[in-house]
């Protein structure tokens, strides 16, 4: 890898680390981070495919309140670097994914460490505020962000200086049953992200929509966009129907505001 590529990779890693906490531009999402690393190292296609595969796994990873999710930033950056150094092209994608998962755990611990160190930063900010020192407050905030960036940039730089042959050797020494098995596992772990999301959102009221989505998805003619259109329409219809029901109930009471019930009654 050329020195320029290396510098660019470290910069991307830094951005991903910052975004790992900020969660604004999404540079830490696999789809973006892996593609960018692929781009600057001349392995664009592999980067995109790795990003897409990892993104599927990371769909439900989100920081809720004080809870910290598996770290997408380190997982995407490090696995993309390993994919590029390994030099196996798109064949290396499933191995890279298998490596990414333990890295997501490592990243989780790193971000928890930085979040603890940041307590010291805000204490410095308190002291600066005591003197109405705007610059001081701003500087300590920026220092905290930089720490989050270095959290990913340093491991990325370390990975880069490890000779490519070592990475290749380590990857080649993995037996086929292990890599194949990990690829199979990778196909299943997607479910964990979905399960996290469902646990957050599911109520009795919305389960039927889950069932409709599940059944409709079996029709392979429907693209994801088409499914999205159906989903939005269902949501709008449901909101409109429940609203009408609510207002007429308020006006007249009883089951007069239950159009479906009325229809059913007519058939009795």
């Amino acid at each position, binding site marked *: 890898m050329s020195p320029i590529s290396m510098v660019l990779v470290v910069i991307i890693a830094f951005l991903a680390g910052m975004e790992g906490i*900020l*969660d604004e*531009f*999404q540079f830490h999402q696999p*789809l973006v981070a892996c*593609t960018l690393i692929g781009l600057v190292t001349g392995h664009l*296609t592999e980067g*995109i*495919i790795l*990003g*897409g*595969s990892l993104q599927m796994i990371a*769909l*439900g990873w*989100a920081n809720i309140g*004080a809870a910290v999710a*598996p770290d997408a930033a380190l997982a995407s950056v490090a696995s993309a670097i390993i994919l590029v150094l390994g030099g196996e092209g798109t064949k290396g994608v499933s191995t890279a994914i298998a490596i990414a998962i333990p890295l997501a*755990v490592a990243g989780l611990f790193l971000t928890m460490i930085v*979040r603890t160190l940041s*307590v010291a930063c805000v204490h410095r*900010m308190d002291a600066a505020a*005591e003197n*109405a020192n*705007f610059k001081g407050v701003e500087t*300590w*905030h920026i220092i*905290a*962000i930089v720490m989050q960036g270095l959290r990913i940039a340093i491991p990325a730089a370390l990975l880069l200086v490890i000779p490519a042959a070592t990475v290749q050797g380590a990857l080649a020494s993995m037996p086929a*049953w292990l890599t*194949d*098995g990990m690829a*199979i*596992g990778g*196909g*299943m*772990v*997607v*479910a*964990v992200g*979905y*399960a996290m*999301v*469902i*646990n*957050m*959102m599911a109520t009795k009221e919305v*389960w039927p*929509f*889950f069932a409709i*989505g*599940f059944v*409709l*998805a*079996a029709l392979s003619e429907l693209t*994801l*966009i088409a499914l*999205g259109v159906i989903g939005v329409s269902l*949501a*709008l219809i*449901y909101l409109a129907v429940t609203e009408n029901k609510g207002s007429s109930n308020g006006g007249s009471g009883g089951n007069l505001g239950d159009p479906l019930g009325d229809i059913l009654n007519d058939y009795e």
Partner: protein
Amino acid sequence: MANEVETTEVKANAVEPKKVELTQKDRRSVCWRSTFIQGSWNYERMQNGGWCYAMIPAIKKLYSKKEDQREALKRHLEFFNTHPYVASPVVGVTLALEEDRANGAPVDDVAIQGVKVGMMGPLAGVGDPVFWFTVRPILGALGASLALTGNILGPILFFLLWNVIRIAFMWYTQEFGYKAGSAITEDLSGGLLQKVTKGASILGMFILGSLIERWVSIDFKPVVSSVTLSEGAYIDWSSIPNSVKGIQTALTQYDSGLALSATKVTTLQDNLDSLIPGLVPLLLTLLCMWLLKKKVSPIVIILGLFVVGILGHLIGLL
């Protein structure tokens, strides 16, 4: 002249006799800085540093006395935590309150902190399902499905759509909060908020149902049956001429429904698929949900699934 003196006397606690206002430029600056609200996220007061960092342009504009600046900085270093994007309407309302205060209105620290804390809880309850669990999975799945084929449009679409939605949301809700002032708290606890949340969870659940069917992959390898087909039900390769003509014949026969070989192999997976496509992924997801509810760490489940994948492959099940 006389009028001005009078105003100063009436508003005894006014910082400046002249009314100070936050211009659109000031509000833009605050909005941009609120992008970094989580930067110094810490286990003690969470987003407090980022919140204060975002407020600085407004504090500089509104308060000229060092004493007031100090109090304002300290006021905004109090505990704060919400979803990073829905912090924007709270920022807007707080800007309006600070402006009133700087112009002499009786807005005390408790009122400002009360509005911040009062809004952050319910708003986080909207931001998490809408952004993290609906918009990001949908855009992410859309981008990823394109990216899996190596299409650069996948990442580009994801990045652009996400940031357009995010920036528009942050700016317009901050402006809305600023204009609505403290009235927003009442508005947000009304029906609109609930509708948005419910609509998002309906869409989210629908999409999740389809994603599980499409993207969770499990393939059971064991062969359930191996039936020898009767003559005429498969392509008899020995009678196919060894030429271009032969390829045509073979394809025509295949198209009319003849099998490729003399034995029909049915794996366990084929049986399951004919029952309900995606049944096993669904069961796996339900199992994960149950484990998560039992407080099993997601990381443990993920690593466990890898172990299952490797062991299952070794014994020939997967």
